């Protein structure tokens, strides 16, 4: 992979992990099921390599980034990738089958940044719901 291609992949991975983290913490806790789902989604759906996923989470890549940077970054992504990120973020929101006002706000902001129509957003949510049914419920009991 060329340096330029690697940079692009790392940027996508950083954007994904930032978007996923924001959704994962929006309800105030990060159960394991959300954590593992984010990485699996990066590998399987966004087709990011292990090396890229590891690199994206290094301090010099993600350390100083904020929610605002994530919104700016998703705006520059090709439409298809933007929708994949939206789907993944909703999958994380659905992991515990509960919704929290800040989760709703983050979904609304992200969907608007990607410039999704209401139909597009609903389509992403259907995909997210299907993936969320595959997440392991036994790994999230909060006792």
């Amino acid at each position, binding site marked *: 992979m060329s340096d330029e291609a690697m940079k692009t992949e790392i940027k996508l991975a950083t954007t994904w*992990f930032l978007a*996923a*983290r*924001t959704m*994962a*913490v*929006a309800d105030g806790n*990060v*159960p*394991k099921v*959300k*954590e*593992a789902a*984010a*990485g699996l989604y*990066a*590998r399987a759906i966004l087709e990011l*390599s*292990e*090396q890229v*996923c*590891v690199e994206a*989470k*290094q*301090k010099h890549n993600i350390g100083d980034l*904020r*929610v605002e940077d994530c919104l700016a970054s998703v705006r520059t992504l090709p439409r298809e990738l933007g929708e994949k990120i939206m789907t993944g973020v*909703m999958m994380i*929101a*659905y992991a515990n*089958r*509960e*919704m929290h*006002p*800040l989760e*709703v*706000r*983050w*979904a*609304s*902001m992200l*969907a*608007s*940044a990607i*410039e*999704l129509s*209401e139909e597009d*957003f*609903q389509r992403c*949510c*259907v995909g*997210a*719901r299907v993936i*969320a*049914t595959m997440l392991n*419920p*036994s*790994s999230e*009991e909060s*006792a």
Partner: protein
Amino acid sequence: MSGSSNFSFMDRYDKRVGRLAGQAERYVYTDPESCLFKLRLMVETMAKTLIELQSPHLVDSDLSTMLRALERSQMLSRSHADQMHAIRRDGNSAVHGDPTPAPTAMRRLHDAHRLSGWYCRTVKRGAKVDLEAFTPPPRAGQSDPTKGEGWKKGEALEKTIEEQRRQTREALLLFNEDENVDEVGEALVKELTSWDEIAIAAGEPLIDAEFVALVMAMDIEKLLEHPRFGVPSKEAHAQAEAQFDAVRNELEAKEFAYRDQRRKLAEGDLID
């Protein structure tokens, strides 16, 4: 007494765990599968003791559920959890008849030794445990097998596998091991809260929050009804509706508070 050089200190804290470790140590060269079986049992015994302190209702769960619960409660650090999972995984393979090289058993024995010091300190709070460095147990009447070529090859293979596992795990996790998850999470929530306030004050973005909440509520209802989660339709509907109402009420309350604040400001201006 457990009769082992690396684990004999455990007799003072947990005799049964110490005995299992001692047995594992004795089998490491002659019967690596039995060594791993004993180590797995040792980890299961440790997990049961710890889970009784933390979440007694899970004491009859399988080992991986107990380990995950201990990790979530932060009783188990990520590195200790990794060591316990490695023993669980290799112990399971051994039980199912997969041949185990002695270097693998030795690595897991070393992991068990690292875990044992922490375990004793956890079950006997305040105990001062002097954990001596791990030494490979001697093999009676034979030259040191760990110096042989075959052993070195096995060790190299184990290192490669562990490195691969470490990279896979790091790639999958949402946060790096050296990151302070609470701190990062707090900063993100704080920023998100500010954006929430901006959205209320400056108007909703393209896809408004109430629409998102409605779509989410419908999806949550369908998810709850899914055979995987098995909530009866009526109950699923009630749960989703309650969640939607709670979010909508909060959105309305924030909107009201903002308008109220604006009205008071305007009235203040008029008085001035």
